[in-house]
């Protein structure tokens, strides 16, 4: 495995051989973080949990853990789609708008027409995927920067959502129970966990598998790393980008389902800041905004860090504004760290 990576000594006879320069502890840390992007966020999460557990006896109670997981489920799910987009050196500002639009579609179609839960859910997934596909087409065909594309579609999808919902919230009691299922809980070792939280964890595991173990996953990384090099290597980069944006759209539809369960209704005004919160989770989780580097698990950890910080600080009696300030500082620290890691010397 990777044991020979840094301690190796080459004879020095072949200039194409490995280098054997001795590294300072700081440089070694840089190399470690460079090869394992999720170590940093995982350490931050652990420290935060320990600190908050010491500060407040209520922090590690099953009820509180359950609460954090519920609070994190929507952003964590959105962050899965956001991560694959950011891995391709893109960004998706429209993720929250797609989620809200699909949640309204799922709920309102069922409430208005009496469509059963499953077809309503599938219709939502179709809408989410098509929204993502539109983003992908604009990025690959018109070759517009993803920031601009998704800034535009954010407004388009949000307006469609207000138009279709007539700005009215759809109550949970008017929906089929399947749409609310994600908010129901099951008892796991004394902690009540929502199905939405479990779905998020399963989604993270499935996407992590796909990124790590399939050719598609490698092509996602390669495309984000260097688009032209990937094209010359025979990767159909436009197809990869399309698949990423469409998959992200489907993931946002899943987030919509989790959202409906979480707030027990479908509100056209929900999740206004969720696009930025998902980017926050991805960035704090160690995925680089410049593409090609990062991991899904990191984004889950990033979402948990934000959730733990907010919850822990609230339990410690800290005002909301300081919680927000803490998250802001975390973002800047995370991106600075990424910049430093990227400067790693061979």
């Amino acid at each position, binding site marked *: *495995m*990777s044991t*020979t*990576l840094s301690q*190796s000594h*080459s*004879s020095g006879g*072949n*200039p*194409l*051989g*490995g*280098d054997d320069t001795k590294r300072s502890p700081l440089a070694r840390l840089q*190399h470690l973080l*460079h*090869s394992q992007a999720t170590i940093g966020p995982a350490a931050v999460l652990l420290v935060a949990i320990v600190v908050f557990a010491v500060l407040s006896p209520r922090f590690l109670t099953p009820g509180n853990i359950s609460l954090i997981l519920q609070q994190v489920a929507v952003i964590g799910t959105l962050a899965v789609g956001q991560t694959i987009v950011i891995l391709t050196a893109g960004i998706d500002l429209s993720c929250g708008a797609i989620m809200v639009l699909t949640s309204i579609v799922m709920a309102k179609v069922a409430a208005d027409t009496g469509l059963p839960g499953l077809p309503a859910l599938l219709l939502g997934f179709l809408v989410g995927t098509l929204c993502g596909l539109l983003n992908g087409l604009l990025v690959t065909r018109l070759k517009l920067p993803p920031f601009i594309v998704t800034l535009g579609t954010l407004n388009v999808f949000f307006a469609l959502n207000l138009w279709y919902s007539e700005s009215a919230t759809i109550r949970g009691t008017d929906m089929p129970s399947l749409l609310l299922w994600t908010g129901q809980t099951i008892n796991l070792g004394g902690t009540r966990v929502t199905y939405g939280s479990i779905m998020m964890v399963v989604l993270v595991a499935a996407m992590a*598998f*796909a990124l790590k*173990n*399939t*050719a*598609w996953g*490698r*092509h996602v*990384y*390669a495309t984000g*790393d*260097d688009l*032209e*090099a*990937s*094209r*010359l*290597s*025979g*990767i*159909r980069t436009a197809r990869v980008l399309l698949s990423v944006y469409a998959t992200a759209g489907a993931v946002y539809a899943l987030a919509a389902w989790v959202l409906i369960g979480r707030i027990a209704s479908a509100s056209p005004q929900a999740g206004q800041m969720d696009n930025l919160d998902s980017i926050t989770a991805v960035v704090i989780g160690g995925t680089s905004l410049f593409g*090609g*580097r990062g991991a899904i698990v990191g984004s889950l950890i990033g979402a948990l860090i934000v959730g733990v910080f907010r919850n822990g600080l609230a339990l410690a009696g800290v005002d909301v504004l300081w919680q927000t300030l803490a998250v802001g500082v975390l973002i800047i620290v995370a991106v600075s760290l990424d910049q430093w890691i990227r400067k*790693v010397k*061979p």
Partner: protein
Amino acid sequence: MTTPVLQARGLVKRYGRVTALAGADLELLPGEILAVIGDNGAGKSSLIKALSGAVVPDEGEILVDGRPVSFSSPIDARDAGIETVHQSLAVSPSLDIAANLFLGRERRRRGVLGSVFRMLDRNGMRDEARRQLDALGIMTIQNPGQAVETLSGGQRQAVAVARAAAFGSRVVIMDEPTAALGVRESRAVLDLVLQVRERGLPVILISHNMPHVFEVADRIHIQRLGRRKAVVDPKTVSMSDAVAIMTGAMEPPGQFA
């Protein structure tokens, strides 16, 4: 007469009002190293891009083993057995060596894991990468699981050459493989070029470096003003004469090639 492995006839490529290729020809014979030299703007890059499928020529034809082909993407050229080491190397820095070697043609595991779960055969690809690096004498790269960005310029070049040599079944094209390298690294890469020929694969070598060209090439294709000006034998033509033909200071001796 032997059929050229790769042949270009009358290639024309225009970019707006600029004509990069004005009816360029090229012949690559089996088992040879054909160097392509030319001044800036002579059309070397466009010629190579046409042969590797990166650009589609406006006119002219390309023949592989005497049969006409048409490349609309790098994938087509690759499928025809033509591998290219681009000047930019076309490697993905954050992926490891084995992943880069198999980039765009990953192998999947056998059975359900591969067909249903699309799982990559990581170990198989890693072993094969190791074999390829060993075969080219670059086994001092410690670990095929090492990220390419941790490698030096020469090592990255070696990875790109190994990829081309591993998958090229007919032709390997190398665009300025020593341009960014120091003396020792250049030496090692030139040895790699010779080893690729020893495997029986003909090589097209684009280079600005005359000593390198004269050291390894069997024939030298001199490109000038979008056309083939001459093909010379490095054993009979001096370096200064080749440069003179390249710059237009001298007409090629006799009939070319």
